[in-house]
């Protein structure tokens, strides 16, 4: 709360940057961050689908490697939740997580048990529950012991091909929309476009940073941490494939890259932002706990809590330093909903 009062004071005291430099910032974010990352996702997802066509055995090293590469690409854009990712709920279909009630396992195991023909048809698969689609569903099919032993092996194999083809189609559609008109709309705000002013476009990017950090701290780390009395290691993201901490590192790198672009032109803000992300990255690197299993023992838990605090510290920096630079007021009621 003290910080909020400070944020208001800072905003009133310091002028935000000009429309011209906001336009440069948005252009740099699109060219150096958004477009290359969505292109990579589309390419890697297509590669994953191709590999699955050749070899859909869940234990296949080539398939698991392609899964890892494409999933990395998704995590690298998972903070960019606006425009093309939200059209037709594409991002929800690519990434149904957290799954607090186990809908992904239930949906997939029932498809397998019934040998439901929809699991054999990539085009029709867009109509199944989003819990059975995307990267988190694929992880369950490739790494969960129950899934690996369930039903008919040939059906499971075909289902992997279907899910990967659906992922590729979604990634390709997002990339196409960004290249088609969305990037141009964002670059050149107009009365009839998605963004009317440079300020609105810059605020969208700022929101991507702040909500991305919130998800990172509260969900990617907060879920396994649970409470001290009841830590929840199996609520960690993608623990089955051993990627939980890896996702935190990838997401920090991606959000940090965007934050750095938004901070450009203000050496002081740029320095504190860079410093905050570097500290958090150093803590992930030191952790040596790929699935946050340490949440259950005091010393392991302490290290993960310290990591979470370092992310909370970045959130404060972003709100108090980066926001005012971009002309974003962080009001008490405006900040975080009801």
């Amino acid at each position, binding site marked *: 709360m003290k910080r909020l009062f400070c944020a208001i004071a800072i905003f009133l005291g310091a002028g935000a940057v000009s429309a011209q430099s906001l336009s440069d910032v948005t252009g740099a974010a699109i060219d150096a961050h958004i477009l290359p990352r969505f292109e990579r996702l589309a390419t890697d997802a297509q590669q994953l689908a191709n590999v699955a066509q050749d070899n859909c055995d869940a234990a296949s090293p080539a398939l698991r490697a392609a899964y890892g590469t494409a999933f990395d690409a998704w995590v690298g854009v998972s903070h960019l939740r606006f425009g093309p990712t939200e059209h037709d709920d594409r991002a*929800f279909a690519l990434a149904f997580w957290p799954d607090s009630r186990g809908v992904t396992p239930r949906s997939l195991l029932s498809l397998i048990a019934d040998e439901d023909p929809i699991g054999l048809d990539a085009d029709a698969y867009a109509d199944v529950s989003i819990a059975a689609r995307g990267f988190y569903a694929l992880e369950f099919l490739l790494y969960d012991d129950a899934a690996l032993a369930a039903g008919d092996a040939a059906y499971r194999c075909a289902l992997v091909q279907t899910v990967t083809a659906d992922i590729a189609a979604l990634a390709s559609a997002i990339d196409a929309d960004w290249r088609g008109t969305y990037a141009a709309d964002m670059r050149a705000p107009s009365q009839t476009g998605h963004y009317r002013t440079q300020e609105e476009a810059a605020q969208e990017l700022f929101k991507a940073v702040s909500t991305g950090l919130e998800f990172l701290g509260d969900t990617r780390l907060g879920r396994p941490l649970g409470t001290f009395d009841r830590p929840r290691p199996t609520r960690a993201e993608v623990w089955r494939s051993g990627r939980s901490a890896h996702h935190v590192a990838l997401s920090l790198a991606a959000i940090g890259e965007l934050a750095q672009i938004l901070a450009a032109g203000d050496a002081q803000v740029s320095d504190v932002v860079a410093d905050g992300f570097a500290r958090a990255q150093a803590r992930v690197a030191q952790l040596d706990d790929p699935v946050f299993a340490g949440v259950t023992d005091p010393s392991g838990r302490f290290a993960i809590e310290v990591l979470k605090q370092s992310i909370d510290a970045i959130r404060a920096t972003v709100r108090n330093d980066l926001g005012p630079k971009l002309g974003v007021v962080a009001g008490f009621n405006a900040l975080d909903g009801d």
Partner: protein
Amino acid sequence: MTSRRQFLAGLLATGLAPTPTWADAGSPQFVAAAALPDGSYVLCGIGAGDAIVFQIPLPARGHAAAAHPTRPEAVAFARRPGTFATVIDCASGLQKSTMTAPRGRHFYGHGAFSADGDWLLTTENDFEAGQGRIGVWDVRAGYTRAGEFASGGIGPHEIKRMGDSDIFVVANGGIDTHPDSGRTKLNIATMAPNLAYLHDGLVVETVALAPDMHKNSIRHLDVADGQVAFGMQWQGDGDPAVLAGLHRQGQPIVPLAASADHMRAMRGYVGSIAFSRAGDQVAVTSPVGGVTQVFDVATNALSHQIVAVDAGGVAARGAGFIISNGQGQLGQIAQGQLQLGARAPLAWDNHIVPVGA
């Protein structure tokens, strides 16, 4: 010198006092939760001249409150997904009791009393099932849990009593959350909000928006003359066509729409909604957009848009409205003009609740 409040508190302690009324609480006209600069949280009573007539500590961030229809008691609810509600004796300025959500439930931040004041209804989440529940609390038995029933949807937020009846209307926002992932929204792609009318523990009517509006989360309510005004929060991409509406039981929803520019100014977010005393106007706040809009009920058209930075709370006052903001200010809206008062050293939180309405 003994203050009036201390004197009353002493009387209450000896059991000699007559039944206290709202006048004994310094006659607050509104109650509202707030955050203090030291990071602590309080519930405040707001009296004549916008004076803060009492300020009572809360264990964590509050949201809205429910004022008892006759006795000077208010219940301050934790912000979602909190599990406490604090019952406050506004005459003595003391905490009377604490309500704790049962295991497997959390509060959503709102509640409403029955017409006789004997029961308190609270919006709650059965988070393992992902279903909205209405908790029923026995006021005479010291705010103990008496039971619960279905809210008629997912994510119930505000609940209001319909006039002097015991029909309640609840805004089922449609958004599924689970405390294991904080406030993360779990079902935006499939959310289906509705407005539900409840009587005697049963859902007697529900009304939903058109399917293309299924991402418009119905969250805030006010009631006047059998008519419900509701405010929404848009979870889709871009700007919604409408963020507020009117409804009467048995009839279709009437949208309170405005031009694309005005809709855009709200940034897809309604923080609070209130009818004017005469029921002829409806005000909606958007702290996110930094504006408050006033609609004419007779024509369903926008009358005024007022710049109101970080204003969350709104309630009827005089011929217009009182609003509260995150900078510790209260303000009066009359004929499309906002007159802001002095800053108190606190941040008003989201809602301002009329007392003894």
